[in-house]
């Protein structure tokens, strides 16, 4: 029962967060150029934050150098070369699997 109530409260709160910008900044008015420019950086900045937190850190500590870093380097290189999301994921997953099998 506690879990149900906690998930319900989190769901309502998260929905309001998801709706916040869409309702507050929506409508016909043009956004000022500096605001529009900042909003254009939301994607890269948020993606980079998630990657850094998941890749370089592990529960608040530095992640020990190993297969995660090496496979991420391979994926980044392939991404810059091919500029394709699908190819990047396939290459990164293959590199990671190979490194694990090799015992890295």
């Amino acid at each position, binding site marked *: 029962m*506690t*879990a*149900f109530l*906690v*998930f*319900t*409260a*989190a*769901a309502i*709160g*998260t929905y309001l*967060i*998801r*709706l*916040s*910008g*869409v309702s*507050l*900044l*929506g409508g016909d008015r043009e*956004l000022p150029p*500096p605001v529009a*420019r900042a*909003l*254009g*950086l*939301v*994607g*890269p*900045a*948020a*993606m*980079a*934050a*998630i*990657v*850094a*937190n*998941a890749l*370089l*850190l592990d529960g608040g*500590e*530095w992640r020990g150098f190993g*297969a995660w870093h090496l*496979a*991420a380097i391979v*994926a*980044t290189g392939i*991404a*810059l070369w091919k*500029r*394709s*999301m*699908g190819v*990047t*994921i396939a290459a*990164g*997953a293959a590199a*990671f699997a190979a490194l*694990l099998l090799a015992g890295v």
Partner: protein
Amino acid sequence: MTSRPRAFLRIGPQQWSDTWAGIRAVAPLMPGAVLFGLAFGALIRVAGINAWVGNYASVTVVAGASQIAIVEQLRAGAPAAIAVLTALVINARMALYSAALAPVFAAFPRRWRLGLAHLMTDQSAVVTLQHAERWPDPVRRRWFIWGASGPFVAVWAMGTAAGIALGPVIPDSWQIGFIVPLMFLAVLVPGLRDSPALVAVAVSVGVVVLGRELPYGLNVLGGALAGIAAGAMVPRRAVPDDAAGGRSPGDPDAGPEVAS
């Protein structure tokens, strides 16, 4: 010629094809969403939480990292209010996507805005932002966004259901947690071109690692905000069309060059 185009489920062929374009744009991320759903489902099972509650969480909260944090807080015996607060802080980054999507959603009818907002995930929000300028027609654009978000949430929910049914079937030694940085690298890197975005990325990474001791994943939120602020101060060089990678706004059928 007055013959109407054939409609399936009362949805026209154009809408189906725009939905399909959205699905294709996000499709490479779907296996990752399934794996993440499996992991969350297995955790529900291990934590002894009711199966229905676990499935309910994935279709109502629709944010895996926060759902995992809730389960961990509950297992650790934290007060319910703290568990909710933790989840909301982790999900606060969604407000940034929501703000960035405001101009994209502006021309949509209210029920579409309300519905698409619920389906907003990191992946579909950023894929939508990368593609939006190629969909100038708001009707076609909303069907594209529906395709890029609805089925993605559906596979996440199916992954959860499978994880709850099967339990922890994926060995720990596979370290499937790597799917998280890999998915977001794949969304981030192919679209990286101009210097404001590069500065935003560098500052964001720096703040995240410097703030690694912060609780509740606040370093992620702080990193994103700092990256946006820093990148916005960098002047954008005028890039000729060729150098911009042949982007062709207004022609959605040109194919997704960022995220094919």
